[in-house]
């Protein structure tokens, strides 16, 4: 029969009549217990997978005391777990023969260390046998039982990987009979209290002497040559092959020590007397070599001992034929010197293929959820099992590893010393093996840590042995010792059970809950190992497998309009996206079709088309520099816009109707304030080399500044003209400083001027400069005049009527410091200018300020939060009031009611006859809109009287004159004005340089050019609920008489929390989360695109649930 060395051990034990077998699996010993598990019933052997090696050895000893032959098996590491009982068994002595099989692992092929178990022989008074081949393993196992009974000592059968995992023909012996003689009461011999122990100690030398006789018999010398080689274990067999290969058998006497302790002293001395030198071949430590040195000294022998001490052989690792051949040449000149073989060209560059968690492994989903929940710098401690493969990228969930059960201990110890909340991972089998005491210890000490028990139902790593937690009944998995109950019984209060494959969202939230809890949190992850499950059922665990939808994978919805960012994203950003998608709680069985949309609603409704989810993701990941780059690559006036934007994005945010829209502009503000604190702005816009074309930009408001910035980046010389002395336009003169402090605006303006934009203030178009002259002296002209002309409000004024003033003029005067104080102020209008003017009047000392608007509150064009802020400051806001006259001491208002829709589609306010009433006031501010001064411009007009301007290029009827902002109509906000500036720069560049123009595209006119304008708030589903973060505000009482900025910035923690609320509604072109974060081996890259290998996909569907782009779909049904 062809047997593995491990199986030969089992055959030997059965031939010896073994009646009890136990063990704990561990490579390379596992096939010993596996074979017993298969055969025990048929062979009438009592067998168990013990919960750990200590229990296994104690059980075997108990069986021996019961008069049965007993065997127990474990790997070298497990033998150390069983150290305590092992030390006392030789004192008490065995009854039935007891054999301990311990498999060593030279070269650490499947273990964290090598160790030489032979030293336990002299240390604990235990005979040690060391088989050389599978056949030898059978013979020595059978013999070990007799040896054990003769000497009353347990026998250690030490094998190594090379013997355990070699499969070779093995000759069987006769089957012995099983016998259980029964337990004989004899407490004085069986209870080693000190008085008895001292008596027992005195018996040990006699026992060892008995064993020594067997060792002498096992000593074997083959060949008669003059070169003496003394070998043990696998190297003895390898050496025989090498000698055969060299044809050197006649020159050598090969002595094999199959019993290595007690030392066969007589045989060794006899051998040494024949030789003047001896080569010792033994793997790991110089155990025999040192014994020979001691023997030589004791017996006065002059033999030279060659081996590890002499440098002929290395100490670590397995001995290959090459190593042995080299030693034979060096020691005796046998054979030929080995030349180092050069590696074949190129093979060194072959990609490595380390082991990974299988496709569909629940551990991967657990680790993915943990990494999604905990911060990037979270410390994770791992343990021994398949889940050790969380080590390394992309899962990175093993910061340290020691031994079975230490995952929790390491987490606890590091937590106690650093004060950081740590996470320990451990499998179900390991938990029962030695994880319970460390968990109890951590609970006792109230350590701040999260203990995660990965219960896949089976001891998977070593070949699917049963776990104490689960068993099989009629082929079905049944729970025996529920881990959660065990944890609770140990005193754990916070215990959660999750299944990351069935409920990834719930698992992430459980981890987040544990992250924020105090003391020990326990999370039990229950999902059966799918490989084990399909072995049990004979069917794949899922019939459906998945494939990539190439139209959605790594696709940016902005590509079609030339606005794709092409900026890298970080792992943290990908994690934020994947977490957000996973928290929607869809399952692979019921995914949401066609989600996400190509472009998120916020971006569609942003006049600048900013990629909000992009910079939110960078902020969530703590990558502020990347966020800054993404914002500034599209927004030339970020310090201003992050304070004054009208935020159409937030109105359409999917969270708006639930836990509040994401505070998008506050996020931008956070990044800009972060950048302002740097010594140097960590962003340099890409600038083309200068060329000889120049553009005159008339008007230094937001549209003009944006165009000037963009044109400079495109290499144009730019002169920026403005009627005012300083650049900024409305930003400087129209928006009060408690909303936009001068420092913030200065940062924006300085950055633009620093690019080399020349500013000429005090130039009024038509008075100081002529359009015709500008067209003469520049390649193109951009008119961005803004709306300086106040709208007319023709009201009959009686004598004694209060003074009235245009609101913008009032705001400008406030900036100049020339405000007059009025006790009572009435502001007519409902836009931002009205609210700003009212709030300014309040700060200038007005006791009573009224904003009067002729339509309803919902229709007020001002930013809603600004209206609220005004109300907080004690400003009265009244709607449905239409002024009819300025009378002595005040304004006459009539009430209105909504009538038929007007041209704008809004209900026309109709005056209610007879409702006129006098409102007493000292000053009237008119904020009923402004219009541009167009009179002098000989350019084509629209029917409405505005300039006819191309909405995509800002071109006018004159080929070299462009216009935008207020001039083109419709630009009512700062952000929209900036968009006009960018479009004008693009239009100018394209008209002047044609195809040479830089391909950086401006934002399209609102929504019309998006490839998917249908993006809507149709869909909202989240497992989490996190309220919107609010930035600090000055209290209404303090701020109403101060011009200090009212709204502050989010703190860093707030900003990251708020950014992580982003639901990532749009697709991302830079995403590779499946490979970068999840790392399922079914994913591979083909032509730069992610693909799924149908042969490798296990169909778990976890990737479907978190794929940020919704790009993974069911493929064929598997037969």
């Amino acid at each position, binding site marked *: 029969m062809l047997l593995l060395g491990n199986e030969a051990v089992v055959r030997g034990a059965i031939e010896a009549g073994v009646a009890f077998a136990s063990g704990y699996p561990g490579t390379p010993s596992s096939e010993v217990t596996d074979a017993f598990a298969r055969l025990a019933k048929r062979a009438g052997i009592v067998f168990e997978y013990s919960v750990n090696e200590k229990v296994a050895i104690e059980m075997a000893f108990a069986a021996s005391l019961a008069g049965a032959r007993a065997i127990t098996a474990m790997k070298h590491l497990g033998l150390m777990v069983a150290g305590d009982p092992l030390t006392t068994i030789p004192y008490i002595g065995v009854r039935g023969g007891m054999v301990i099989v311990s498999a060593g692992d030279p070269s650490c092929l499947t273990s964290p260390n090598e160790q030489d178990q032979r030293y336990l022989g002299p240390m604990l008074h235990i005979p040690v046998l060391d088989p050389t081949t599978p056949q030898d393993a059978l013979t020595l196992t059978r013999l070990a039982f007799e040896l054990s009974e003769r000497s009353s000592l347990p026998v250690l059968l030490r094998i190594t990987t*090379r013997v355990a*995992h070699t499969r*070779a*023909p093995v000759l069987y012996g006769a089957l012995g009979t099983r016998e259980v003689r029964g337990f004989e009461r004899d407490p004085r011999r069986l209870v080693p209290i000190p008085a008895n122990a001292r008596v027992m100690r005195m018996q040990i030398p006699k026992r060892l002497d008995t064993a020594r006789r067997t060792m002498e018999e096992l000593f074997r010398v083959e060949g008669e040559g003059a070169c003496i080689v003394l070998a043990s274990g696998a190297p003895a067999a*390898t050496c025989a092959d090498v000698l055969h290969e060299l044809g050197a058998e006649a020159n050598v006497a090969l002595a094999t020590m199959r019993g290595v302790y007690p030392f066969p002293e007589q045989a060794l001395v006899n051998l040494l007397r024949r030789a003047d030198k001896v080569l010792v071949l033994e793997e790991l430590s110089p155990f025999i070599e040192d014994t020979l040195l001691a023997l030589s000294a004791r017996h006065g022998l002059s033999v030279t001992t060659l081996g590890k001490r002499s440098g002929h052989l290395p100490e670590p690792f397995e001995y290959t*034929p090459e190593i042995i051949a080299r030693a034979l040449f060096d020691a005796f000149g046998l054979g030929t010197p080995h030349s180092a073989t050069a590696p*074949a060209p190129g093979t060194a560059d*072959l990609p490595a293929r*380390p082991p990974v968690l299988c496709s569909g492994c629940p551990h991967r989903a657990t680790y993915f959820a943990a990494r999604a929940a905990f911060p990037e710098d979270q410390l994770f401690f791992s343990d021994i099992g398949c889940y050790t493969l969380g080590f390394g990228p992309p899962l990175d969930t093993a910061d340290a590893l020691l031994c079975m059960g230490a995952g929790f201990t390491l987490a606890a110890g590091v937590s106690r010393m650093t004060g950081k909340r740590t996470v320990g991972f451990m499998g179900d089998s390991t938990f029962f093996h030695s994880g319970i005491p460390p968990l109890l210890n951590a609970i006792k000490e109230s350590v701040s840590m999260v203990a995660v028990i990965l219960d896949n139902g089976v001891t998977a790593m070593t070949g699917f042995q049963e776990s104490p937690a689960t068993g099989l009944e009629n082929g079905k998995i049944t729970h025996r010792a529920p881990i959660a109950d065990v944890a609770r019984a140990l005193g754990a209060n916070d215990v959660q059970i999750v299944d990351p494959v069935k409920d990834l969202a719930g698992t992430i939230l459980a981890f987040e809950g544990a992250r924020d809890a105090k003391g020990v949190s326990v999370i039990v992850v229950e999902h059966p190992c799918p490989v084990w499950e399909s072995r049990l059922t004979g069917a794949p665990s899922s019939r459906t497998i998945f494939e990539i939808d190439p139209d959605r994978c790594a696709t940016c919805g902005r590509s079609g309009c030339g606005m794709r960012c092409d900026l890298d994203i970080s792992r943290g950003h990908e994690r934020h996206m994947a977490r957000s998608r996973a928290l929607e709680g869809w399952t692979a069985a019921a995914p949401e079709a066609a989600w996400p949309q190509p472009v998120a609603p916020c971006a569609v409704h942003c006049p600048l088309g900013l990629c909000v989810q992009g910079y939110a993701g960078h902020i969530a990941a703590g990558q502020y520099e990347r966020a800054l780059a993404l914002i500034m690559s599209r927004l030339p006036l970020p310090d201003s816009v992050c304070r004054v934007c009208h935020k159409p994005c937030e109105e359409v945010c999917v969270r708006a109707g639930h836990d509040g829209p994401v505070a998008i502009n506050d996020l931008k503000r956070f990044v800009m304030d972060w950048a302002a604190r740097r010594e140097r702005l960590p962003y340099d816009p890409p600038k083309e080399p200068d060329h000889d074309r120049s553009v005159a930009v008339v008007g230094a408001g937001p549209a003009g500044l944006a165009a000037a910035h963009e044109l400079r980046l495109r290499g144009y010389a730019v002169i920026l003209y403005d009627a005012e002395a300083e650049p900024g336009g409305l930003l400087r003169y129209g928006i009060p400083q408690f909303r936009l402090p001068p420092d913030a605006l200065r940062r924006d303006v300085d950055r633009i001027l620093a690019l080399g934009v020349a500013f000429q203030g005090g130039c009024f178009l038509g008075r100081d400069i002529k359009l015709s002259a500008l067209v003469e002296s520049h390649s193109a002209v951009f008119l961005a005049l803004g709306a300086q002309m106040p709208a007319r409000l023709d009201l009959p004024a009686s004598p004694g009527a209060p003074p009235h003033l245009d609101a913008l003029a009032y705001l400008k005067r406030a900036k100049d410091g020339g405000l007059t104080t009025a006790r009572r102020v009435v502001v007519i209008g409902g836009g931002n200018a009205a609210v700003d003017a009212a709030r300014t009047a309040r700060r200038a000392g007005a006791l009573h300020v009224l904003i009067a608007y002729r339509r309803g509150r919902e229709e007020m064009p001002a930013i809603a939060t600004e209206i609220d802020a005004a109300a907080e400051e004690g400003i009265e806001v009244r709607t449905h009031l239409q002024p009819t006259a300025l009378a002595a001491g005040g304004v006459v208002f009539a009430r209105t009611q909504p009538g038929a829709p007007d041209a704008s589609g809004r209900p026309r306010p109709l005056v209610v006859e007879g409702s006129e009433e006098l409102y007493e006031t000292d000053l009237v501010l008119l904020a009923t809109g402004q219009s541009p001064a167009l009179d002098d411009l000989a350019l084509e007009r629209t029917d409405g009287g505005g300039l006819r301007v191309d909405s995509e290029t800002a071109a006018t009827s004159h080929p070299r004159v462009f216009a935008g902002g207020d001039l083109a109509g419709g630009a009512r906000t700062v952000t929209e004005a900036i968009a006009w500036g960018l479009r004008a720069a693009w239009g100018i560049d394209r008209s002047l340089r044609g195809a040479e123009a830089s391909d950086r595209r401006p934002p399209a006119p609102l929504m019309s050019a998006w490839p998917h304008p249908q993006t809507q708030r149709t869909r909202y589903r989240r497992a989490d609920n996190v309220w919107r973060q609010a930035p600090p505000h000055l209290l209404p009482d303090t701020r109403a008489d101060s011009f200090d900025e009212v709204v502050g910035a989010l703190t860093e923690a707030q900003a990251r929390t708020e950014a992580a609320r982003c639901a990532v509604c749009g697709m991302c072109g830079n995403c590779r989360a499946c490979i970068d974060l999840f790392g399922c081996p079914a*994913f591979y890259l083909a032509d730069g695109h992610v693909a799924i290998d149908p042969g490798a996909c296990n169909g778990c569907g976890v990737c479907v649930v978190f794929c940020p782009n919704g790009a993974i779909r069911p493929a064929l049904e598997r037969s």
Partner: protein
Amino acid sequence: MTPNGRFRLLVVGVGGQGVLSVARVLGEAALAEGKPVVLGQLHGMSQRGGSVESTVVIGPGYSSFIGPAAADALLALEPIEALRAVPRLSRRARVVISTGKVPPFTLAQKGLPYPDLSGMLSALREATCEVVTLDGPAIARAAGSSRSLNLVMLGALAALQILPLDPQSIVRVVESACPGGPAGRRAFALGMKAVSP
């Protein structure tokens, strides 16, 4: 075969492909012929999609090592794994390779495609006695079980008569104790046919 009569076959592949089963069948076939045989195999972490190898050494002796330039033949269930074994091949080695690629996950993580191995494969043809390649996965699918790639390749190896074994002894082991059932037997037969003239 070495002068003193041991023939060394290296079987390589990826965890899960059935490398160990191939070696086992060859071992049983040798045993049936009464030839001494030793198989070496590495268990443990290599099963989780890692590189796996098994050695089949036929002839008198104990150890299952195949050292540098010592293999008389190579059966590779995956091309990268075949090339990884090149330093172990002797100049007289005969090589059978399944061309079906299993991309190592480390490549995707680094953003790299499966490497172009054609140059290295032609170098392998220069450096060894014979290289036979076949599309193992396609033949396995034709046999009705994509999991029986190992038996396809075993069939090819048997038909090429590379080993010092009678192909019929291998056939008999496959037919009596085939791990893959009827589809496995079909795969083995198709593998044999694929390389037969």
